[in-house]
């Protein structure tokens, strides 16, 4: 498949090489070569297309009210029309800068947009996803101050906690402690007690996994008062409207950027956003693009600060990361360019409104109530009168996607999200379905 060689050409090529068959070129030991492969028959493109569509048809479309780290937003057609151009899609990593100015400039613009959104000094070219970006930020903190205790909010996304646990497995001296929550946000008194001179960093998600807004100002100040670094996990879309990690004094600002112009794709690829204060840029993992000049003095873009990276430093590198999520970052920068400051703000405002309208509707249903009372952005926790997992199954049958929280202390709780993709009628329909259960 996709092989152009004719048998005549093959013969000419073999003659040039000086052998009579490809087998003579192999240096695989005889007893290992040409094993039997038990594979289904090869499909033609037409058969394959039908097959893929039939697989897709096994996915039942639902009206999605799940957020929880992956968000459904409208994607203007221009985003995919531009990013799917072969010039972007089929380009390699921009190692030969002179032939890759397009990709390099889009990454520079992406970095600039992320800095503008977060009020941070520098951003990298992107990371695998929000969870791995957060884990790498924590590793950077431990490298920077050499302290061995990491305080994390218990209201972090559970997958982020698990990934951090994985990434810290080989640092047995580093301990992770979870800050208890009160009314769905970090308990400030507990934070004060837990922070000490051994604390490397405080990791806070804002809004957190329950959608609640934290008192990031106070928590950041508490961390800094003990000389700890402040790692801020932001929700991308919220930054169209909400105060920024930089304004709260964050040292590292990380988050999942899929919300900007990327479809959900069952959770991947994501787009890890990673920004920090200027002082820490040489501890930042991943690619970074900078402006340079060519030999005529003309503006040009290059991968820079490469002395941090694996292909130069090998085992002494800041991280083993090699790729970034360039195409997802491209989607994001096109999306942000189309939206502009005003479009992004209006979209974020519509998210706030829809989520609050939904919260209002469903919390009025008998037996249902809001679990927490603080401000939230586009998702919230709903206390239900029946096991939430049963509700998930029943609502799935009615064509709605909702998510049951797994935490023990949040039994019978659903996490609900309403973005600008939901109409007021959609909200009514979900409320109606809940009433009928």
């Amino acid at each position: 498949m996709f092989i152009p060689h004719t048998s005549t050409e093959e013969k000419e090529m073999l003659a040039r090489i000086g052998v009579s068959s490809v087998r003579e070129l192999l240096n695989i030991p005889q007893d290992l070569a040409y094993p039997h492969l038990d594979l289904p028959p090869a499909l033609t493109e037409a058969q394959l297309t039908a097959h893929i569509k039939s697989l897709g048809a096994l996915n039942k479309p639902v009206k999605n009210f799940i957020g929880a780290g992956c968000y459904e937003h409208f994607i203007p057609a221009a985003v995919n029309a531009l990013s799917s151009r072969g010039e972007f899609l089929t380009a390699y990593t921009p190692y030969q800068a002179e032939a890759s100015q397009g990709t390099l400039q889009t990454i520079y613009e992406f970095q600039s947009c992320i800095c503008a959104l977060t009020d941070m000094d520098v951003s990298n070219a992107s990371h695998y996803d929000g969870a791995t970006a957060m884990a790498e930020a924590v590793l950077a903190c431990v490298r920077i101050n050499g302290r061995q205790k990491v305080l994390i909010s218990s209201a972090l996304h559970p997958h982020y906690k698990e990934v951090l646990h994985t990434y810290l497995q080989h640092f047995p001296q580093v301990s992770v402690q979870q800050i208890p929550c009160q009314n769905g946000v970090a308990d400030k008194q507990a934070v004060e007690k837990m922070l000490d001179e051994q604390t490397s960093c405080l990791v806070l998600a804002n809004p957190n996994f329950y959608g609640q807004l934290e008192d990031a100002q106070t928590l950041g100040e508490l961390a800094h008062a003990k000389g700890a670094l402040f790692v801020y996990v932001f929700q991308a879309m919220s930054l169209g409207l909400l105060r920024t990690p930089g304004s709260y004094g964050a040292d590292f600002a990380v988050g999942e950027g899929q919300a900007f112009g990327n479809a959900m794709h069952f959770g991947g690829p994501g787009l890890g956003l990673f920004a920090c204060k200027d002082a820490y840029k040489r501890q930042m993992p991943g690619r970074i693009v900078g402006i340079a000049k060519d030999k005529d003095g003309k503006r040009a873009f290059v991968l820079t600060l490469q002395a941090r990276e694996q292909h130069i430093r090998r085992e002494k590198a800041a991280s083993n990361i090699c790729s970034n999520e360039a195409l997802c970052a491209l989607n994001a920068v096109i999306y942000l360019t189309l939206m502009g400051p005003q479009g992004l703000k209006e979209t974020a405002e519509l998210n706030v409104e829809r989520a609050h309208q939904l919260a209002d509707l469903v919390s009025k249903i008998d037996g249902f109530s809001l679990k927490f009372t603080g401000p939230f952005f586009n998702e919230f926790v709903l206390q239900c009168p029946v096991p939430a997992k049963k509700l998930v199954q029943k609502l799935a049958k009615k064509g709605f996607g909702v998510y049951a929280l797994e935490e023990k202390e949040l039994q019978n709780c659903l996490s609900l999200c309403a973005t600008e993709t939901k109409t007021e009628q959609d909200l009514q329909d979900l409320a109606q379905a809940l009433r009928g259960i």
Partner: protein
Amino acid sequence: MQEILNTSALSIEKSCPGRRGVRVEKSLKPAEAYLPKDVLRPQAPKLPELSEFDTVRHFTALSEKNYCLDSRFYPLGSCTMKYNPKAYDAFTALDSFANVHPFTAEVCVQGTLKMMYDLQELLKAITGLAAFTLQPAAGAHGELTGIMTAKAYHAARKDKKRTEVIVPDTAHGTNPATANMGGFTVVNIKSGPDGCVDKEALSKALSERTAVVMLTVPNTVGLFEKDIVEIARMVHASGALLYMDGANFNALLGLAKPGDFGVDLLHFNLHKTFAAPHGGGGPGSGPVGAAAHVAPFLPKPIVTLKNGKYTLSGKMPKSLGRMKAFYGNIAVCLRGYAYLRQHDGNTLKNVAEKAILNANYIRASLKDKFPAFFDRTCMHECVLQTVPAQMNGVHTTDVAKRLLDYGFYAPTIYFPLIVPEALMIEPTETENKEMLDSFIAAMTRIYEEIQTQPETVKSAPHGQCVKRIDEVSAAREPNLRWK
């Protein structure tokens, strides 16, 4: 001619206050009606203000400054720049796959789960390994997953003194970085004079401290490890695991199964061997496979089939944990799945054979001017050199830049590190003979230029939108964003 249109202007420099791209539905009430004022940002972010048409023009113009596989040949060694079938673009755009939330009830996502399960099965079939995880987001992430799986395996056996990972000097740069990130000490071993692992050096390096031996097969000089079976036996006898970097698996499709030669762990790059596009640097996907005794330690979750239903809820009590949020780069997995379903054992074998044929054709055609470092047949890529005595002061990097002028991307250069002035060339099976002949002609022409007008080569490129870039100054005073 003086430029009138500034073709390297940033979007922010084209920005005009008040200009709008897309129109968005307005909320009925302002945000202050729902949220306290002190959580709102006082100033909007400094994003560009362009119309939709401006935006389309801006990014289209940028795309035209890119070299890409759809238009030209990429002879990049170890990158497997093969054709990315257009049908797969359409598959990933299907709403039924793209618009699916990862926390949707499993009963509603059986199509995606079945695709993932079947991809796991197909990868098992072509490797002879016992299990696969689709979670890793890229090749290097797959390496890290593999190394941590090995760590969990040794820990479960209470074998705690295994703190070293052995890496040959021909390894990808990510291998030692990965080992370090996994908390291991890296032990480098030198290759033998034939470009393969020196068994004596390996034997000396192996000990009860060895956790993993990381081998790239075929290795980065384009050779199959001829003693792989014995190497695996040595590794296992010392109690360590054999990890195979599968970045070069395009050379082995249908020709050899890693499970047959004793590989315990392996990662693939779906964006190399399985035809997913590189996207200018990602997203990739790096599934990791494991032999039966190591499989329980892979990250969770893995898709299983239970009573006719596909599920992610299978128990994996020995798993190392989770490597990223959710389940993997599923859109990339869908492309890998599609590629495998378009092939059977015979056509996969043909992929590897033609990749090997193309690489040897280039090696044989250029050997008088750019000799191979190891003068023998190669697998899917060949490592050539510029020979300083014949180069008139021209270096490999100059040859690379000059190739751009002739309409070719540069090969991977100065890698592997053991080869001085290396040019690592991987044509892949999807390039036709005419393209290979053109590349050979360009390399020959450059060789002639080196003899007659070396300055032209040293100052290349001449035909790109920018000339040779001063990378050193960029790192000295970094400008990493607009202000």
